C-alpha cells in the first residue's frame, strides 16, 4: 500500500461542551496521508461532535488543530472545505427538492459563458452516479430517491472535490453490501492518491475491511488510538463499551436467538393484500403471524420502505387491504393503524421521526399521549414512569428527559424513536432499519428486544440493509424487487445465498437481460459472503477479518 507517515491533520486537546454536557474532553487525533482512520465509539461518544469541531461547524472550547503543517481554526464548513477537508456528515445533508444533478454539483456547477451549463451538468451527473451504481434520472428531485441512494449521492459529491482529507460519518448506515463495496473501492482510490480518510461506522466488519488505524472514543475521551491490525474485535468492543472482554465475548454480531420457529398457522397478526402505490409498489401481499419476524429483503430502492409505509397508510389512499388480527383496517392512515396496533419505525429519523425541538420525554410519549391523559390533560407521573423505564431499558444516553432530542447523538435519537413505539404496546411492529446508526452494544440489545417481543407474541416486519441482521433475525423473508414480490424464503432458504438467488430470479413478465446478482462471487456456502465479498482485497494487516464473521457467527449460536 501507499507508504506514508506524513501527518495531514492533527488535533490536540480538543474539548467541547454543550450546556453542561461534555461531548469532548481533550481529544487528540492524528491523520496520515493515504490512510483510512476509523473513529469509533458508542452512541453519544462524541464522534460526530469531533468531526463538526474539525470542520468548523462547532467552535471548540479548548484545543488546537493543525492542518497541512499549520495551526488552523475553521470558522465555517465552507472554510474547511476550501482548505481541502471534504465531509459527509452523519445525516444526509443535501437539498431534497433540488434535482439529483444539482445536488451533486451545488457550489461548483460547470459554467459556460458565465452561465450554468445545465446539459453538461446532467450528463456528467448521470455518468458519475452510474459509476457509483445509482442509475436514476438525474433531473428528478433528490427526495424521490430512497435514503440509501441519497447517501450515495452525498458520497459522490464529497469525493468529487479535490481534498486532502475526506471525512465520512456513518456513510454506510443505509447502504446495501453492494453499495458498501462500491464505497470501499472509492476509498481505496482516495488513499491511493494520498488522501487521508476518516471513517465512522458501527459496523465492525467494515472497519477491518478498509481501515488502517483506529481511534476509540468513550464519553468524549480517547481511550485508544493506534493500528487497527493489532486489535481484535473483542478488544475493540470492550474498549468502546468500557467493559471487560469476558462480558463482551458472549455477544456476537447479532444477538438474535435461534429458539423461535415460524408459526404460520392461525390468524395472521398482519395480513396485507394487493398493496399498490402508484408507480412504486405493485400488488404486494404478505402475512405476519403473531410471534413471527418477517424480513423484507431487496436492494436499494426496491420499495421496502414504501411497502411498510403503504401498510400504515402513510402514502395516502393506495390500493390494497390490510387486516390486523383478522379485523380489516377500514381507514388507511397512520393514526388508524396505530389505533389498530400497527406501528412503523420510519427509516429517515430526521425527516420522519424526531420532533427536534421537543424534549426526549415529549418525543417518547408523543404517540402514547392520548392513553396517558385524562380529559385531555396529560399526567406527568405516568409520563415519567414510561420515560424512565425506556431510557433505562434502551440505555438512552441523555443528560435528562428534558434534553432537546435534536441534541442527542444520532444513535440515541434512534433509540428514542424505538421507545416511542414500544411504549404503545403494539401488536405489529414494522421496523425500517431499526439499528441504523446504533452502536454495537445497543444494536445487540435492540436485536434481543426484537426477539423478546416476538416471543411475546408480537408480529414483526423487519427491513434491514444489513443482510446478516435480516437473515438471522427473520423467520421468513419476503423479497422485493422494483416494488413487487419476487420471492419468499422460508426455513432453510432463509440464508444469504437464498436471498441472492431470489434477487437474481426474474419474474416472467420482465424482459431484458437477466442481471447478475453480484459482480464476481459464486454463491458460496461459506458464511458471510455478503459482508466481505471476495472481490475486496483484504487489508494487509488482516488477521482477524477472514475468519472473523465465521467466528462471530459461531459465538452467536
Amino acid at each position: 500500500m501507499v507508504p506514508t507517515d506524513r501527518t495531514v491533520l492533527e488535533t490536540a486537546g480538543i474539548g467541547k461542551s454543550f450546556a453542561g454536557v461534555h461531548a469532548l474532553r481533550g481529544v487528540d487525533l492524528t491523520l496520515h496521508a493515504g490512510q483510512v482512520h476509523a473513529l469509533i465509539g458508542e452512541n453519544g461518544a462524541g464522534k460526530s461532535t469531533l468531526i463538526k469541531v474539525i470542520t468548523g461547524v462547532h467552535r471548540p472550547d479548548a484545543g488546537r488543530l493543525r492542518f497541512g503543517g499549520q495551526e488552523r481554526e475553521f470558522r465555517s464548513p465552507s472554510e474547511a472545505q476550501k482548505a481541502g477537508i471534504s465531509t459527509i456528515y452523519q445525516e444526509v445533508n443535501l437539498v431534497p427538492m433540488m434535482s439529483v444533478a444539482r445536488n451533486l454539483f451545488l457550489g461548483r456547477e460547470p459554467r459556460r459563458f458565465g452561465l450554468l451549463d445545465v446539459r453538461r451538468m446532467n450528463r456528467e451527473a448521470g455518468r458519475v452516479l452510474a459509476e457509483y451504481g445509482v442509475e436514476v434520472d438525474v433531473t428528478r428531485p433528490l427526495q424521490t430517491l430512497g435514503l440509501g441512494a441519497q447517501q450515495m449521492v452525498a458520497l459522490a459529491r464529497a469525493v468529487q472535490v479535490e481534498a486532502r482529507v475526506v471525512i465520512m460519518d456513518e456513510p454506510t448506515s443505509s447502504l446495501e453490501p453492494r453499495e458498501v463495496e462500491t464505497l470501499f473501492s472509492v476509498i481505496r482510490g482516495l488513499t491511493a492518491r494520498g488522501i487521508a480518510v476518516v471513517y465512522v461506522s458501527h459496523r465492525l466488519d467494515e472497519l477491518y475491511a478498509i481501515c488502517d488505524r483506529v481511534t476509540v472514543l468513550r464519553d468524549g475521551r480517547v481511550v485508544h488510538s493506534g493500528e487497527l491490525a493489532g486489535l481484535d474485535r473483542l478488544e475493540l468492543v470492550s474498549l468502546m463499551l468500557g467493559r471487560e472482554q469476558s462480558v463482551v465475548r458472549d455477544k456476537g454480531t447479532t444477538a438474535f436467538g435461534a429458539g423461535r420457529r415460524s408459526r404460520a398457522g392461525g390468524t395472521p397478526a398482519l395480513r396485507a393484500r394487493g398493496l399498490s402505490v402508484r408507480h412504486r409498489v405493485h400488488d404486494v401481499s404478505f402475512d405476519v403471524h403473531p410471534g413471527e419476524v418477517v424480513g423484507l429483503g431487496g436492494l436499494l430502492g426496491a420499495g421496502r420502505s414504501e411497502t411498510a409505509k403503504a401498510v400504515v397508510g402513510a402514502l395516502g389512499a393506495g390500493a390494497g387491504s390490510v387486516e390486523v388480527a383478522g379485523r380489516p383496517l377500514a381507514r388507511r392512515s397512520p393514526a388508524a393503524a396505530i389505533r389498530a396496533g400497527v406501528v412503523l419505525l420510519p427509516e429517515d429519523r430526521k425527516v420522519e421521526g424526531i420532533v427536534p425541538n421537543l424534549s426526549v420525554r415529549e418525543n417518547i410519549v408523543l404517540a402514547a399521549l392520548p392513553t396517558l391523559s385524562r380529559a385531555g390533560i396529560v399526567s406527568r407521573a405516568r409520563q415519567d414512569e414510561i420515560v424512565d423505564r425506556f431510557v433505562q431499558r434502551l440505555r438512552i444516553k441523555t443528560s435528562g428527559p428534558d434534553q432537546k432530542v435534536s441534541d442527542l447523538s444520532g444513535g440515541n435519537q434512534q433509540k428514542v424513536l424505538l421507545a416511542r413505539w414500544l411504549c404503545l404496546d403494539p401488536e405489529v411492529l414494522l421496523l425500517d432499519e431499526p439499528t441504523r446508526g446504533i452502536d454495537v452494544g445497543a444494536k445487540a440489545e435492540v436485536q434481543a428486544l426484537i426477539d423478546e417481543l416476538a416471543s411475546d407474541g408480537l408480529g414483526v416486519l423487519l427491513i434491514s440493509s444489513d443482510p446478516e441482521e435480516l437473515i438471522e433475525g427473520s423467520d421468513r423473508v419476503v423479497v422485493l424487487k422494483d416494488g413487487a414480490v419476487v420471492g419468499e424464503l422460508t426455513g432453510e432458504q432463509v440464508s444469504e445465498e437464498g436471498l441472492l438467488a431470489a434477487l437474481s430470479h426474474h419474474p416472467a413478465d420482465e424482459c431484458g437481460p437477466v442481471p447478475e446478482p453480484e459482480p464476481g462471487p459464486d454463491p458460496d456456502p461459506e458464511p458471510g459472503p455478503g459482508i466481505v465479498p471476495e472481490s475486496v482485497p483484504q487489508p494487509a494487516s488482516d488477521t482477524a477479518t477472514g475468519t472473523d464473521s465465521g467466528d462471530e457467527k459461531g459465538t452467536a449460536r
Partner: protein
Amino acid sequence: MSALGLAGVVPDRDRSLRLLQQYGVYAALLVLFAVSVALDTGFLSTGNLRIQLFQVAPTLVVALGMALVIGTEGIDLSVGAVIAVSAAVIPLYIGWGLPVALVVALALGAVSGLAAGAMVAFTKVQPIVATLALMIGVRGIAELVNGDSAKPVTDSGLLSLGADGFAGVPLMAWIAAGCVALTGTLVHRTTFGRQLVAVGDNRRAARLSGLPVRRVLITVYLLSGVLAALAGALIVGHGAEADPANQGLNMELDAITAVVVGGTPLTGGRVRVLGTVAGALFMQLISAVLTQHNVHTSITQIVEAAIICFAVYASQERGTR
C-alpha cells in the same frame, strides 16, 4: 487559540445567553417601563395604567390565537377581518341581548376559522394565502352585512364590558387574562398542546406518529377565529361603535409582532404564552410613550421599527457553535 483560557468562561456565557433568550422580553419590558416612568412619573398613575390595559387587551386576545397558529408553522392574516365581522353582527343581534350577540359573533369567528383551517388542513393551501383570501373576502362580507357605515352601539352590557372594571382592573383585561390562563393550560398541560407543537415542529413525524394533524390544524385556526371575534366584541364595547370597515385593520400585523417579540419563532414548534403577553405589553408601551410625548408619525414609525428589531434580536435563540 485562546480557547483554553476561555474554557471556564464559555459555559457561563452560554448560560447568560440562554437566560437572556428566556427572559429577554420581560427584561426589555421592565426597562421600557422604567424609561416611561422616568420620562414622566404620571405614567404610573392608575388612570394611565388602566388606559394601557384597555388598549392592549384586544391585541393580546388576538395574539394568543395567533401564537397557537404560529406554533403549527402557520399564520393567520384573517384576524382583522374577523374582528370586522364581529363588529358587523353585534349591532344586528344586540337587540336579542348581549349573550345572543356574543354567541353569534363568536360563532362567525369560528366559521371563518374553520374555513381557514379546512383550507390549510385538507387542501394544503399555504396558510398565508388561504388567510389572505379570507382577510379580503371576510372584510367585504362584514361591510356587506353591515349595510351602511359605522353604527353607534348603546347596549349597556356591552359598553360596560368595554369600559368598566373589577377590583380596579378593566373587565377587558380580566377577560384577556382569562384567555391567557386558558391558552397557557392548553399549550402546556394538555395533549392537544403537545400535539400542536409537534405538528409545527415536524409535521411528517407527527403524522407518522398517529397524531390527528388535520384536527389540530383546524382547531388552532378555529380558536384563532373565535378569539379574534371576542376581541372584536371588546373593541366594539370599548369604542361604543361598530365599524366593520375600519376596526381590526392591521390587527394581524400587530398580533404577529406581539407573538414574535414575545419569543415564539415563526418557524413553529414552540408557543410562548407569557412571552406573547409580554410582547403585546411591550408594543403597547412603545406606542403609548411615543404618542404621549407627541412624537411625529415619521419618527414614531422609525423608532418602533428599531425597537422591534432590537427586542427580537436580544431575545432570539442563538445557535451555540
